[in-house]
C-alpha cells in the first residue's frame, strides 16, 4: 500500500527499526514496544556510533527485540544472551553491547550468567523487561512473579518468593542499577543514555504490562489499567537502599536510579593486572595505542 510505504519512509524510527519486519508480534497493550521506542530515542540522543552497537536477545517476547532493531543483532539461546554478549565484547572491545531480554530469560535460566557478568563488571548494558511471567510460552510463573499472583503453572497463586532485581544486581556487583516502569518513558530513555556511555556492568529493569497473560490471568484489565497502576503506585526514590525494593502483588513500585558507581571493568582489570605481572612484555588488549 503506497500510504504504508510513505509512512515507513518518514517515520523517524526508520533508522532504528527493521521496518520490513514491522508489524511486530507483540500483543495489544504490551509494553515492550514502548521500551523499544525509549531505547531508540536514547540511541538517537546519545549520538553514539550505531555501527558499533550490538544488541543480543534471548528467547521470549522481549527476546524478539533483536529481530526488530536495525543494529548488529543476535537472537541467541534461552538465558545465554549475557555470555554471548561477553564473547562479542571480548572479541571486539570497541563494540557497545546491549542485552535486551526478559525477566524469565535473564533471571530464570540465565541467572547464573547474570551474576557472573555483574561480578566481573563486564562492560555491557542489560535492559530487563520485567512483565512478571514467562509470557511467550503462555504465562508461567517466573522468578519475579509477585507472591499470590496467578500464573499458568501456579494456578492457585504463586507461593514462591520472587527476586528483587535491583537488589540482586547490586549484590552481584553491577555499577549502574535503575528501575523504571514502561510509563516512565523519558526516564527510561535518560537511564539508557547514561548507561550507554558508562563503562561497566549496567542494569536497567523496566516493569511493563503483559496484557494477554499476566493481566488477564490476574484480572487486572488491559494495558491502560496496568499503566494506571504504575502511575498510582510508583514512587521515585533515587538512591534508595536496594534491600527495600521488593514488589508485592499490585503493591508499591519504588523506581529510580539506585546505584551509579565507578569500578574498573573486566578488561581494565585484566590489562592492569597482567601489565603488573608481566611488565613491558605485555601489550594491553583492546586498548588503542
Amino acid at each position, binding site marked *: 500500500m503506497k500510504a504504508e510505504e510513505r509512512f515507513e519512509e518518514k517515520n523517524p524510527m526508520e533508522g532504528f527499526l527493521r521496518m520490513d519486519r514491522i508489524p511486530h508480534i507483540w500483543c495489544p497493550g504490551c509494553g515492550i514496544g514502548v521500551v523499544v521506542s525509549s531505547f531508540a530515542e536514547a540511541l538517537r540522543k546519545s549520538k553514539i556510533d550505531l555501527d558499533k552497537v550490538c544488541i543480543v536477545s534471548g528467547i521470549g517476547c522481549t527476546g524478539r527485540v533483536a529481530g526488530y532493531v536495525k543494529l548488529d543483532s543476535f537472537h541467541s539461546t534461552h538465558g545465554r544472551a549475557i*555470555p554471548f554478549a561477553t564473547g562479542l565484547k571480548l572479541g571486539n572491545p570497541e563494540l557497545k553491547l546491549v542485552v535486551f531480554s526478559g525477566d524469565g530469560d535473564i533471571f530464570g535460566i540465565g541467572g547464573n550468567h547474570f551474576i557472573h557478568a555483574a561480578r566481573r563488571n563486564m562492560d555491557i548494558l542489560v535492559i530487563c523487561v520485567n512483565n512478571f511471567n514467562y509470557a511467550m510460552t503462555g504465562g508461567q510463573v517466573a522468578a519475579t512473579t509477585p507472591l499470590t499472583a496467578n500464573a499458568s503453572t501456579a494456578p492457585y497463586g504463586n507461593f514462591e518468593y520472587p527476586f528483587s532485581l535491583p537488589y540482586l544486581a547490586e549484590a552481584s556487583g553491577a555499577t549502574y542499577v535503575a528501575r523504571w516502569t514502561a510509563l516512565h518513558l523519558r526516564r527510561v530513555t535518560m537511564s539508557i543514555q547514561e548507561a550507554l556511555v558508562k563503562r561497566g556492568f549496567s542494569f536497567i529493569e523496566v516493569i511493563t504490562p503483559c496484557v494477554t497473560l499476566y493481566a488477564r490471568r490476574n484480572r487486572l484489565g488491559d494495558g491502560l489499567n496496568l499503566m494506571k497502576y504504575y502511575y498510582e503506585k510508583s514512587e521515585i526514590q533515587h538512591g534508595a537502599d536496594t534491600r527495600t525494593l521488593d514488589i508485592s502483588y499490585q503493591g508499591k513500585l519504588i523506581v529510580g536510579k539506585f546505584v551509579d558507581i565507578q569500578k574498573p571493568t573486566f578488561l581494565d582489570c585484566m590489562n592492569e593486572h597482567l601489565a603488573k605481572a608481566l611488565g613491558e612484555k605485555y601489550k594491553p588488549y583492546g586498548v588503542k595505542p
Partner: protein
Amino acid sequence: MKKVKADPKGVLTGAHYLDGDFAIAEGALAAGCRFFAGYPITPSTETAERFAERIPHVGGVFIQMEDEIASVAALIGASWAGKKAMTVTSGPGFSLMMENIGLACMMEAPLVIANVQRGGPSTGLPTLTGQQDMMQVRWGSHGDYEIIALCPDSPQECFNLVIDAFNLSEIYRVPTFIMTDECVGHMNEKVVIPPAEEIELVERKWYEGPKDKYLPYKPDKDMIPFMIKAGDGYRFHTTGLTHDERGYPVINAECQNVCVRHLVDKIKKNADKIIRYEEDATDDAEIVVVSYGITSRVTTRAVMQARKAGIKVGTLRLITVWPFPEKKIKELAKKIKAFVVPEINYGQMVIEVERCAFGQAPAIHVPHCGGWVHNPNDIFKAIKEAAR
C-alpha cells in the same frame, strides 16, 4: 577463502616434549586462535591452563566462564566479533554444550571444541580414558545438522589436527571437534612445531561487496555463505530460529526445508574434501581393523601379531571420524572377509562401519568400556576369530 600466514607470536617453533592437552593449546595459538572461553574439567583442564599462561604473551583473551554453556555462548559471540575461538572440555561438559553447539551450527559460526574424552556416562571416570562420545559429537544436539570431527592419536597429531580443525571450521563455517581422550591428552611425547611460514592457515570467506546488498545466509557457489563481523556497519541479524537468507526468522515448512538441507548438505556434499584416513595393506587384506585415536596405536601391536600369524590384515585409521568415510568402508566391504572395530566404548563407530558395509562384511566389535586401553591380545583374538 583467504590463505594467511601464521602469526609468529603464537607459534612456539621447535621440538618440545608436550602432552596432548598442551599440544592442543599450542596448536590453537599457532592457528591464530585468540579467544578461549572455558571451564575446568578433568582431563582437559591443562589445555585451558596452558592457554591462560600463554595468551598474555601472544595477545588475546582467556576467560574462565561460569559453566560450559556460557563457554560456547561466548565462543559464538567472539566468532561473530571476528575472532578464532576455541574451548576444551570432557564428557559432562560436552553434554552441557550441546544446545549452544546447535546454535553455532544454525548461525554457521566457526569455532573449535576439543573433547578430551573420559569414561562415562555421567561423572564416570574423570581421570581415565574413554572414547565414548563419538556418537554424541555427531548427534548430541537436537535437530538435523552436520559437524566435522577429527581424532588425533598422539600429541603431535593433536597439534596438527587442531590447526586443520580451525581451517575446516573457517572454510565450512561449522563447529569442528577434536575428539581426543585422556590417554592422548596426558601422554607426553615429542611435538615438533614448524616455523610460522610453514603453517598454512585459512580465514573465513569475508564479504567484500556493497553493504546494503549483504545477505548473511545466501550460499555462495561452494554452498558456504559469506561472513562479516559485528561492528562493521552491516546491521545484520542472525538467529537460532529457522531463518531465510536475510537472517530473519521465517516459521514455515518451506524455509525449514531450505535451511536444514543447507546445514547438512554443505558438509555432506563436500565430504570427499574433508574426509581423511590412513590405510595400510588394505589392497589384499582379508580383515581390516578400523580404529581411531589411541586405539589405533594399540591396534598396531595386534596387527603385528596377526601378520606374524599369517593373517592378511589391513588397517584403516580414521582421522576424520565425522563425516564418516562411508565410501571407503563400502569399497572395502566388497572385498574383505570382515571388519574388526576396537574402540574404548561399548559400541559406537562400529554401528557406522556395519551400516556402511551394507551387509557385505560383518563388523566385529572389540569393546572396552573405558578406564584403560585395550589389551592388544584382545584385538588379536578378534582378528583371529574374524579370519576363520
